[in-house]
């Protein structure tokens, strides 16, 4: 993991920033979100992929691509969470001030 981070820090930073931006926008976004049912399926899929990566069942290059994808996705999610929380905090402070 440490090796992936040092080797791909540029791409991981990009994923994190993308997540931060998406999280920032998501708080005030009015479009439709993903339904609960779909999100459960997506969560199960993600869990299955993580399990596959940890068990190292996918060999060679696809295995590496899966690892890379999951690391980027995890950092994206972390960025989203941070962005959303930050936006929410900013909104809440403004509302108090008003």
């Amino acid at each position, binding site marked *: 993991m*440490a*090796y*992936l981070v040092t*080797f*791909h820090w540029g*791409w991981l930073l*990009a*994923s994190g920033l*993308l*997540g931060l*931006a*998406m*999280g920032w*926008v*998501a*708080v005030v*976004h009015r*479009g439709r*979100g*993903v*339904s609960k049912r779909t*999100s459960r399926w997506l969560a199960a899929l993600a869990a299955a992929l993580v399990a596959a990566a940890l068990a*190292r069942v996918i*060999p*060679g*290059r*696809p*295995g*590496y*691509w899966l*690892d*890379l*994808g999951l690391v*980027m*996705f995890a950092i*994206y*999610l972390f960025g*989203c*969470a941070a962005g*959303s*929380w930050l936006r*929410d905090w900013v909104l809440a402070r403004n509302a108090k001030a008003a």
Partner: protein
Amino acid sequence: MHGIFRWSGKWWPGTVPLVVFWAIAAWTSTAPLESDLAARSTAALKDTVLDKTRIEVAGRDVTLAADAFSEDGRRSAVASVETVPGVRLVNDETRLVPEAKPFVWSAERDVARVTLGGSSPLPASKGKLLEAARAALGGVEVVDQMNLARGAPPRFDNAALLLLDQIGKLKDGKITISDTNISLSGMAHDLGGREAIAAALKNLPEGFSVAANEIKAPPYVFQAYKDPVASTVTLTGYVPDNNVHAAIAAAAGRKFFSEKVVDNLKASVGAPSGFAGAVVPALGALSRLSTGTLVVADREAKLSGDALYDAAVAQIRASLAKDFPPSWQVKADISVKPAAAPVDPTVCQQLFSDLLAKGKIRFESGRASIDPDSAGLLDRLIEIAMRCPTADIEIAGHTDSDGEDAFNQALSEKRAQAVADYLVKAGLPANRFTATGYGSSQPVASNDTDEGKAQNRRIDFLVR
């Protein structure tokens, strides 16, 4: 915290560019990542002794194929690749180098090259052996046909290096190590090479033994060539040591009284036993030939040439058979020189005088037995006597003044008679010769010095 779940439903649009990022990252980073991991894995194996190492990287998975020289070495090689940062899995395709039983190594030399074959325990020792072979055989091509194998006996490298030193002493041949048994065959380069190799084999590392040493020495050759035109005798080849050299040179000087002895002999070990005992009589036989060659190789002597008259051939053969050491072989291929043209008795006298001025008939001290060293001179005297068949010849014996007159008189008579008998034995008619003794009554030099006495002790041939 509750908000996170609410908001997360709206995070999905970002996954579209994320997938694009991911695709680009995977596309551009796979090859550099693989080559980086391959380099790190190779570096991790730097201190591990392996053969035929092959590292293939697919993604973060490393396939390691190699021949290891021990189970520990094999495991540690896999472990060191596994600990390389970034490596996810190691596909272990390593195996142990096959074990050779028996463990055989060989070095074979022919005229143009040296071939190293069989098994070598480690790549490092293989390199060391090749380097040693090149150093020991400066300029000779070294061909490497060695495999790597396990199962070498302890101290194999030392034994092989010692044997490689010996291969330089061979003209051709083969040295083999089979487990701890060493066998050698072939021909040594120089005389003494066989002995030098045998001496070196005493320093073999502990545990090794010589199973067979069939190194042959090159033939021990001694040659003598008598050239009547240049009036020289050329000695070439080997003698065992300086003492034998001096003895042979002295014998040649006595036997070849009128020829110049050209001595090109070299001292070398490896002479067959009885060397001097065979060479000296063979030189005596050569001295009786008008032209001839003597070749002594190991225990075989070949004499060829022309004797001066018929009876001499049988005499030479008989004396060789008698004087040669047992276990030696002698081949005499002797023909007879065509008889020289007859001459006047006065010419005969001149020829006798000239010849006796160059050399004297020698006798054992105080006795009338002719020294065998004088056989060559007597043959020439006989040849001259045959050229003037009508001349009667007086054989005159003289002594120096030492001792009593009566003894000297008797000795001079006996010696003259001994020479006359020798000539008759050679086939000349007895009635042509009269043997007379003069004792010390007719000195040709002063009897006061040893030199003068030596001149006075003589046999003269006088044509009547």
